[in-house]
């Protein structure tokens, strides 16, 4: 469950001029009524394109996200943690499958989406471009990165595209234990030995800046996406989600006696908003465009997996029938 800030194209409103105005009005009315758009419904090209992009990115995030956490499976301390982590990472791969399937209903075959990932054309959640140095880093991801993803996901589950919403519902149901597991791991570290506490504090220091990037650039420098909000493709602003995350989880981090590496982080009791040091958006841009500590590795692993697995897919291909777009 690693969906985070989606990178949207600046919607080219000119494209809408070519769409049938009657159909467009009906389409928008349906969304307004709260009804779901299904694969066989008429939809504007821009809606289809933006949705494919968004769902695809979410799917890529799941499969790439499986890497920094998956590395800890063999090293997980003890059976309880190991079984849980195996189940969790497996779920993430399963979520990738569910999400690619949802995007496929819009007309793009899965292998084409995967090609866009390995060619670098499509992006995935930036937070996975950072390395997990210790077990505590893995616990940070399991708790707080998942928490962030859930904030994003709960918003998107109320979106307009049927298959995506249904995939998110299924994901939420499986997720129920991920967050609890992550929190449980961190509590064990927090209430454990001095060494364990220190391990987590150091992980927290490392991961806080990327976590502040997680929901995407602040609204004031973000892409304008009113039409995407109208079509219920983008469901909440980056800042709104970031605020929700901070409100829910900063107190939980503090109650464990950890310090967050931002002296300006505090809740303004009057406005109810959290104040914080503005994250470095140049760094964010740099990393997401390829210059992070793990970008090369993540893609190299993914490409290697695709390449070494190609013979399997070729052998699984049924030459007698052709691919058709999946239903629902």
């Amino acid at each position: 469950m690693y969906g985070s800030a989606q990178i949207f194209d600046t919607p080219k409103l000119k494209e809408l001029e070519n769409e049938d105005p009657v159909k467009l009005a009906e389409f928008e009315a349906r969304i307004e009524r709260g009804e779901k758009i299904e694969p066989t419904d008429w939809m504007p090209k821009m809606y289809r394109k933006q949705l494919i992009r968004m769902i695809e990115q979410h799917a890529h995030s799941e499969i790439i996200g499986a890497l920094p956490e998956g590395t800890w499976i063999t090293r997980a301390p003890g059976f309880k943690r190991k079984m849980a982590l195996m189940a969790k990472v497996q779920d993430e791969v399963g979520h990738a499958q569910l999400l690619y399937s949802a995007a496929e209903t819009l007309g793009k075959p899965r292998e084409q989406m995967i090609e866009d990932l390995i060619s670098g054309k499509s992006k995935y959640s930036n937070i996975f471009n950072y390395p997990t140095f210790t077990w505590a880093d893995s616990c940070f991801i399991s708790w707080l990165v998942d928490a962030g993803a859930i904030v994003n996901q709960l918003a998107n589950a109320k979106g307009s595209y049927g298959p995506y919403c249904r995939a998110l519902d299924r994901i939420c149901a499986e997720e129920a234990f991920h967050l609890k597991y992550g929190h449980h791991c961190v509590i064990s570290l927090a209430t454990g030995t001095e060494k364990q506490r220190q391990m987590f504090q150091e992980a927290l220091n490392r991961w806080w800046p990327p976590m502040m990037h997680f929901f995407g650039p602040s609204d004031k420098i973000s892409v304008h996406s009113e039409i995407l909000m109208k079509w219920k493709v983008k469901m909440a602003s980056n800042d709104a989600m970031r605020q929700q995350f901070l409100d829910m989880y900063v107190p939980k981090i503090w109650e464990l006696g950890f310090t967050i590496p931002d002296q300006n982080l505090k809740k303004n009791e009057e406005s109810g908003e959290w104040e914080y040091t503005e994250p470095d958006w140049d760094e964010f841009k740099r990393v997401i465009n390829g210059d992070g500590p793990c970008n090369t590795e993540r893609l190299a692993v993914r490409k290697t997996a695709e390449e070494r697995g190609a013979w399997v897919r070729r052998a699984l291909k049924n030459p007698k029938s052709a691919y058709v777009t999946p239903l629902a």
Partner: protein
Amino acid sequence: MSALKSLDPRVARLNIPSEIELITEKEEQDQLNTYQVFRQMNLKRPFEHVGIVHAANLELAFTFAKEQYSRRQTCSGIWVVETEKVKTTDFTEDQESIYSKIEEPENKKGQMEEFDFFHLDKRGKQHVHIGSMKAENHEMALWRAKQELELDKPVYNVWVVKSEDLLKVEEGFQDIWDTLPDKRYREAVDYKAGDKLKEFKERMNQAK
């Protein structure tokens, strides 16, 4: 040529060349076909559509579907069918049932065989199996269903599938799902840390 260095020991074992131009394109032949998957939670409930898998044949589609769609809760059966073999109707709006739009087909030819029906009774939900009946072909199956089904609610959309196109894995295989309820480590309730947290907070308060 040196291997890609990584903190991940298994990545290190993969011996990925650090300076090689890896593929950025995939072959066209890579794309597998999709299969629609239906799952039955328990013997008292109908089969429901849950999603798709990519696979080579029906047997593999089932094998994959079992892990992708029945990892949680309970399961007593899974059906799979190639997407291509599912015949669909249009969608209707409001309170109109799609059956009211079904016309008598011209082609009434064919051997009588069994067809399974899946109904969608609300936008946003998924198709549910409602039964099967014999017919000469898909169009006749819909036509016959229109005459014979007593529907108390409008149906938005129908999927019709030749029963022989479905692989139905149920009787005799239920034991593969036996241990599902035991896997508590996959359930949120298994992670209770309330006491630990409480005790920790008390300790912190005392230290102050």
